[in-house]
Every structure is written in structure tokens, then in C-alpha cells.
């Protein structure tokens, strides 16, 4: 069957350099003397350490518990003793450190008891939890937790398995598909079931005919319940980009700010499918991956490497030639030079390239942009890279975002074709991190403002409550006083009947007192309730001190008013 394929915009054809390592079968890498297992294996979330120094662990034993929404579990890659827990440099362009568990292998490589997961007997939620606890993340490089991707929804029409492997030099997926095609297909079938896909498309670049052949054979043998197609896609970097591969295979163009799931497509790497197969069928958590060792080396090859193996331990396997000046992690288009060779292999590390000035010449000096538009022609995200470059360069970040800076996948096509050798991707990374920093800043400022406003509100509220309480108390006292005063008045009147002059004076005094009280609140009309409450309180105190002259009731508190009326009547 000839399937209609679609094209994505742009792309470049760098030298593939696959033949160096593509013929080397996968071999297990020797056990290092110490493993450094980072607790942060997936993007944005570190696992919580659940082992202690000195504790003996078995292979596959959980050493880090998934924490947070994006967390996944981390496991001991082999049996041995935990010798330290602490920060260690990570594979990161700027050599960041992250917490890691140091394990000294005991050489037995003894598995913990494994139990396969029976999907038929369990539901979807427990399947996702199982994958999370098996530490399954995307193995194409981004290390995004697979259970999150699978959890976006059921009823995804198409599952795409990404075997394109478009970066030059890397052959780990190629070898995996050639040697363990059946496992990959089984993993794909599991993934398809979880998301409820009705078809599976496996995209492989046509420069890997053996992998295509092997996968087709595996599909034929597996006789899956739903249609599975192994499709050779034209070799064009970056055909292995998620959006690009989806576009080529299905014709669906995922717009700005959307994910494949919203369009009924979900994409997983072949390595991830393989890991899912191991986790479900054998109960094995993800503790190793295949890494290509190639470049300026005498014996390039593909190795099954335990997660946490320090990279310097792997280098002798490929025998780097003497003129090697640095090592790249990842491919030459998107990878970066390692600043520290003691960094461990993580679940997303797919390739280590020995670089020499001959193979990877240092880039010529940056020249002015002449707006030739080559970058726009090469951009697979259909952006205008030179516009983004000017905006980033002039720190006009708002404008850069308006031109969809965040749709840039940093594939490096623009830098690859730029005749002025402008490191365009560096400018975008700079702009992105600046924008993130500003957003963090403004988020922090927002938070501080919210906190301040809430504090004000809380103080106000407490004050009001206190005032209300006091006012109530005052009213009570007043009412009591009013009662006693009433008695006094009666007494006075009674007195007056005996002595009219005296009574007259007393009446006049009482009138004057009343008038004085009536005039007094003139400047308190428009006071806020709390101020009135305060006055009431003071008034109450004064009354107490005076010992029972009648007060003019104030404010809005009805009890007070009533009290006043009672008194006047």
C-alpha cells in the first residue's frame, strides 16, 4: 500500500553520519564502580528520596518516590549500597547540580521481585500509576513523564511511534528497532490500548531500511488487534520533531499553543514504547537505556547503559581519537558540549559524540544579518527566524512573543543555514530565558502584592470585629446605665414636687445636658463604622468615669439607637 505522506515546511539535510555506529549491535556497557542516579529524571519534578546512606538496595528497587503532578519514580539501576546522597553536576549546558543518590554496585546485579502488570485485571488509572512508579518518561530526549501524556484523555484516534531519529550520528533507536522490534511493537500496542487509539503509525526515516524491515516483520508476527503501519518517511531534519512527524504521517498541523492530544494524535518515542513493554510485561522499571557512542572514535557503537553511569566511564568504550577536543551530549544539531565528564547518563541521554575540530569545525565569526531569508526557508515551525533574532537582540521581548518565539523548537535549522553564521538559536534561548525570568519576577511581585493586600484586609477585619465587640459591650453598659438614670430622673421629679425651684434647676440642667449631647456628634456624621464604634467606646468609658450622665447614642448600631429612644421617652 502506498500511503500519502505530507510535508512539513523547511528542514535541512545535514550529513547523516549514521553508518559509523549503525552496524554495531547493542552491547551492555560494563558496570561502573559507582552510579550517580539523579533524583530529577523527568522535566520539572524531582523525586523524593526514600533511601538512606548505608542502605543496601536491589536492582529495580525504588529509591525515589514520585512527587508532584509531573513526578515519576526513580529506581536503583543495580544492586548495591547507597554510599552518599547529595548534589552532583548534571548533564546541562551550564553544568547545574542536582540531588543524586550515589550507589556502589555489589556486582551481583540482583533484581528485586518483579511482578508483571495485568492490564485486563486493572483499570486505566492504576495503569498510569504503574507507569509512573516504573519511572517511564519520554526517551526521545525531553524526558516528559509518559503517564501525563497518556492521561490527557481516552479516545485518541492515532498513536504515532517516533522512530525517525533525524539527528545525525545517533543510531540508538535504529538499533533498538532492528534488534528488539517485537518489544517495541508490543509496547506500542499497550500504549494504543491505554489511549484508546484506533490505529498506530510508526514513522521511520528512510535512511534506516533495516529498521523499517525489522519493524514490518515484527508487526506481521505480532498480528495486532488494530491496524499498525510502519512508514518510511523522507529523511529530512527535523522529521523526528513531534509536530513535524505528526504532520508528515497524518497531515494534521498542530497550531500554536496546542498539543497533539487535542487533535486526536499522540506521539511516543520507540524507546518509550520499549520501556513500557518491559514495565508492563515484566514489571521492570526503567533503569537502563541505549546510548550511541560515536564521532571521532575508533570503535563507535551502541550500548545498553544503566541510568546513572558517569559519562567518563563510557568514553573508553568508543576509543576517542587523540585530536578529540570535546564531547557532545545529544546530536550535533541540538546537543551541547559537556563541561564536566563526571555527569551521569539520564533517561533522556541518547548519544555521546566525540568531537574534533575537523569533524565539527568551530563556527566562523558572526557577521551582520543581510535578511536573505534562508532561515525562514529552513524553519520547520514556519517562523520568521530573522525577525525573532532582531527582536531578541534588541531585547524587544514582547514583539518576539508576538511573533511566536515560543513555537521555536530550537532545532537549529536556522543557525545551520545562516550564511552570516549567526548563532540564532542562542538568541532565542536567551530571549526565552529572559522572558521566563521576567514572568517569574512578575509572578513573585503579584504574590507579594496579594499577600500585602490580604494582610491589610485581615488587619481591617480584625479591627472591625474588635470594634463591634466593644460596641456591643458598650451598648450593654449603656442600657444598664439608662435604666439606673431613669430611676434617678424619677427621683429628681419626686424631689421637685417637694421643692419647685430645685426641680426647675434640675430640669434646666437636664435639658442643657441633653442639648450638649445632641450637638456634639455634628462632626462625626460621616465617619466609618469603626471610627464611630471607637467614639462609642470612648463615650462609654467617659460615662463610666462620670458615673451616669446620659449619653447621646451614636452611629449605626441599632441597639444604641434603641437605647437612646428608650431613654428619651
Amino acid at each position, binding site marked *: 500500500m502506498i500511503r500519502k505522506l505530507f510535508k512539513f515546511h523547511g528542514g535541512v539535510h545535514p550529513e547523516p553520519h549514521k553508518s559509523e555506529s549503525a552496524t554495531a549491535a547493542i552491547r551492555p556497557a560494563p558496570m561502573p564502580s559507582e552510579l550517580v542516579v539523579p533524583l530529577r529524571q523527568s522535566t520539572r519534578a524531582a523525586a523524593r528520596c526514600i533511601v538512606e546512606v548505608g542502605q543496601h538496595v536491589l536492582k529495580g528497587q525504588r529509591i525515589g518516590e514520585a512527587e508532584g503532578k509531573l513526578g515519576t519514580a526513580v529506581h536503583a539501576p543495580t544492586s548495591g549500597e547507597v554510599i552518599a546522597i547529595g548534589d552532583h553536576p548534571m548533564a546541562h549546558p551550564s553544568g547545574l547540580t542536582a540531588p543524586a543518590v550515589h550507589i556502589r554496585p555489589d556486582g551481583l546485579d540482583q533484581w528485586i521481585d518483579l511482578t508483571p502488570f495485568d492490564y485486563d485485571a486493572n483499570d486505566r488509572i492504576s495503569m498510569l500509576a504503574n507507569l509512573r512508579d516504573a519511572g517511564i518518561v519520554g526517551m526521545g530526549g525531553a524526558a516528559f513523564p509518559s503517564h501525563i501524556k497518556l492521561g490527557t484523555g481516552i479516545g485518541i484516534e492515532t498513536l504515532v511511534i517516533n522512530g525517525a531519529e533525524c539527528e545525525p550520528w545517533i543510531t540508538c533507536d535504529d538499533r533498538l528497532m532492528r534488534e528488539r522490534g517485537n518489544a517495541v511493537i508490543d509496547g506500542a500496542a499497550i500504549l494504543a490500548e491505554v489511549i484508546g487509539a484506533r490505529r498506530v503509525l510508526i514513522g521511520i526515516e528512510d535512511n534506516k531500511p533495516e529498521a523499517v524491515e525489522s519493524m514490518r516483520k515484527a508487526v506481521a508476527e505480532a498480528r495486532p488487534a488494530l491496524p499498525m503501519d510502519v512508514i518510511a518517511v523522507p529523511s529530512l531534519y527535523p522529521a523526528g520533531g513531534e509536530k513535524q512527524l505528526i504532520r508528515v504521517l497524518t497531515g494534521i498541523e498542530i497550531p500554536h499553543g496546542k498539543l497533539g492530544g487535542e487533535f486526536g494524535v499522540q506521539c511516543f518515542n520507540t524507546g518509550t514504547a520499549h520501556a513500557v513493554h518491559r514495565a508492563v510485561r515484566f514489571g521492570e522499571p526503567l533503569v537502563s537505556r541505549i546510548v550511541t557512542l560515536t564521532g571521532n572514535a575508533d570503535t563507535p557503537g551502541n550500548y545498553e547503559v544503566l541510568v546513572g553511569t558517569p559519562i567518563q566511564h563510557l568514553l573508553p568504550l568508543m576509543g576517542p581519537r587523540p585530536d578529540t577536543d570535546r564531547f557532545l551530549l545529544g546530536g*550535533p544539531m541540538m*546537543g551541547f558540549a559537556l563541561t564536566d565528564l563526571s555527569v551521569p547518563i539520564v533517561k533522556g541521554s541518547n548519544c555521546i559524540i566525540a568531537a574534533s575540530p575537523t569533524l565539527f569545525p568551530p563556527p566562523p565569526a558572526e557577521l551582520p544579518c543581510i535578511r536573505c531569508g534562508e532561515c525562514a526557508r529552513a524553519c520547520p515551525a514556519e517562523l520568521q527566524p530573522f*525577525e525573532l533574532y532582531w527582536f531578541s537582540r534588541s531585547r524587544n521581548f514582547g514583539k518576539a512573543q508576538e511573533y511566536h518565539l515560543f513555537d521555536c523548537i530550537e532545532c537549529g535549522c536556522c543557525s545551520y543555514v545562516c550564511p552570516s553564521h549567526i548563532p540564532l*538559536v542562542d538568541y532565542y534561548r536567551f530571549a526565552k530565558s529572559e522572558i521566563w525570568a521576567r514572568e517569574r519576577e512578575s509572578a513573585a511581585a503579584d504574590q507579594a502584592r496579594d499577600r500585602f493586600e490580604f494582610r491589610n484586609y485581615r488587619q481591617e477585619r480584625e479591627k472591625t470585629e474588635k470594634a463591634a465587640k466593644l460596641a456591643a459591650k458598650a451598648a450593654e453598659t449603656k442600657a444598664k446605665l439608662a435604666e439606673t438614670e431613669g430611676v434617678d430622673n424619677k427621683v429628681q421629679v419626686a424631689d421637685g414636687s417637694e421643692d419647685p425651684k430645685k426641680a426647675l434647676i434640675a430640669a434646666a440642667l437636664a435639658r442643657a445636658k441633653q442639648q450638649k449631647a445632641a450637638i456634639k456628634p455634628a462632626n462625626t456624621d460621616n465617619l466609618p463604622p469603626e471610627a464611630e464604634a471607637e467614639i462609642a467606646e470612648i463615650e462609654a468609658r467617659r460615662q463610666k468615669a462620670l458615673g451616669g450622665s446620659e449619653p447621646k447614642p451614636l452611629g449605626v448600631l441599632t441597639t444604641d439607637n434603641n437605647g437612646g429612644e428608650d431613654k428619651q421617652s
Partner: protein
Amino acid sequence: MSRMRRFLDSIEPQFHKGGRFEKYYAVYEMVDTFMYSPNNSTRTAPHVRDTIDLKRMMSYVVVALIPCIIWAWFNSGYQANLALAELGVARDDWRGGLLSMFGIGFNPSNPFANLVHGFLLFLPIYLTTLIVGGLWEVLFATVRNHEVNEGFLVTSMLFTLTLPPEMPLWMVAVGISFGVVIGKEVFGGTGKNFLNPALTGRAFLYFAYPAEISGDQVWVAVDGWSHATPLGLGETGGMAAIAESGLTWWQAFVGLMPGSLGETSTLAILIGMAFLLYTRIASWRIMLGVVIGVIATSLLFNLLASDARPMMAMPFYWHFVVGGLTFGLVFMATDPVSASMTNTGRLVFGILIGFMTVLIRAINPAFPEGIMLAILFANLFAPLIDYVVIQSNIRRRERRHVSA
């Protein structure tokens, strides 16, 4: 070579910060990078790169100009020799002296004599352009602390080829100064100019000294010899006047007519164009746009032709072979810095140039050379065109996925 390298290395500290010649680092850098490729650079992804290169792009344009340059030598010499023969006089300046001294002579039927004669006409103008323009480049690079750019080689060559063969050299100097300084450097140098520097310089000369760059007197490098260009004839007498002068379309196509140094031969320009298109240096969309614009507009004017505006009757295939239209469309309009950058924008940009060229030629007899003004005009509109293209693209895509 290693001796040279050692010498450059030994004097380098003098040009660094705090050194004696700190201010002249740009000059040192120019010499250094001209001879050796620099090795200071970033070391991040991607670690591989395409083989295309800015310097190569610039040198390709110069290579594409070679047929025009050779034709400039031959034709300007040929036209001068023809005029001398007809006037029956000898050349009495230094060129005449040189030509007589080496016994090359002034025979218009001797291609070699024509070539050498033309070369002697071309050389002073080119050297003046190169030296004066180059001085400005170095001056700005020194003050601004950036590198001297190869783009100037293209500018200087283009500027020279658009001038009449006997332009006074001081005017050449003034023209290229204006082009380089006002057309480019004041905006920040290569890549930041919005006008084509060569055309800016030429436009300045055109308006400042019209007597030396337009009319009937200047196109043949012989004093007292008046010969209108076909475009000038067309402006006054229409196609009839061109036919009367005896010029056939094929002669005009090959370029055997008086005119600016490098603009006369459409044939030579087409060879350069093929090279530029084959190497993908120049945008075919801009070229196509100009062609569409010219054809559409001239067909429209053919319908409206009247006696008052004889140029309106000029058929489109004549438009392409007279004046600087083809030269402008291949070498000037495609200057990526001052053109539109989006693909659709480039097409629109080209159509605007084609339309304006024919409009100026047909409607305004005061400016027979329409392409120069049309390109400068379109240069000004290029950012606007791009803005509209990008915005409408964004809107269309938003609509598409809203409705989807």
C-alpha cells in the same frame, strides 16, 4: 604564509584595548580576516553548518557581474571609438596617449581596441568608487568598532556600472560617499540599511548633477558628441524615434547602444541572472514580480496610448532591453537587505517595482530612468509589505484553526 601570520600576531596586541593603535582595531581585523579565517566563535548547538557563507554570497554576486563588466569595457570603448571615427578626431587625454603609445588605436571594428579603451574609461571611476567608498567604510568600522564588510565590494561595483562612462571623478566620489554614508552607515552599517546604497548614491547624483547623468551628451565618452539613449528617444518620439535611429531590438538586447557603463546589454545581464538563480543567491520571486509588474503595466498603457505620452505605446519587450530595467531587476531589486523578506512580500515588492518603473517611464518624461526611483520607492515600502504579509498570515492561520 607563516611569516605573515607571525607578523600579524606580533602586532596584534598593539590593536587591543590599551594598545597604541587601539582605535584602528577594525583595520587590523580587516587585514587579518581577509588573509586568515577567524577562530573566535560560540560553541553551542548546532555543531554542524551548511556550506553557504556570507562572503561567498557576496563574491557570487561579483562573479555574476563579470559578463556585465566585460561588456561595459567593450561597449563604452566601442561607442567612444565610433564617435571618434565619425567626428574624425583623435583622443587627446591620457587615455588617448596610452592607447596611441601601445599602438592599440581607436578602430571601432577592432574588439581589442574597444575593450582596452572601455577599460580605461571604467578603471578611474571604479578606483575612485572603491577608494572613497572604502575609506568611509573603514572610518565607520573604526569608530563603531565593527568589522569591514564584504558587501561593499558589491556596492562599489554596482554603483560604477550604473554611471555614464565619463562621469567626472569628483562627482563619483561625492555620489559614493552619499550612498555609503547616508544610504548605509548612518543606519548602522551592513544589514541595517533600508535603501540600496548604490542606488542611493546614484539617485543623489541624478538629482544633484542632472547634466552629467542624464540627457543626450553624457552616454558616449567623447566630448561634443551627442547621442541619445533609446530610452531618451522613446521619451520624446516614442517607438518611431527609436526605429528612426536604426536601432533594432536585437541590437538593444545585445547592448550595442550608448548608455550607462554596465546596463546596456540585456544578454550579459541574463547570463549573470542565470548564475544568481542557479546558485539561489538572488530571489526569483522578486525577479518574477518585476517581470509581471512591467508586462502588466505596459500592456495596460499600450491600450491607453496617446500622442502626448509616446512612451505609453512602448511594448513590454522593449522595456526590458532599454535603460537600466533588467540590470536593476537582477542586481538591485534582489538586494536582500533592502527588499522584502517574506516570500509573498517579495513577489509584491517586485510587482510594485515593475509597476512603478513603467509608470515613471510612461507618465513622467522628466525622469526617463524609472527603475532606480522605483526600486528606492519599493525599498521604503518593503517593511510595510512584510508587516502586512505576516499579519495576514497569522490571522489566516488563527481563522483556520478556529473553524477547524
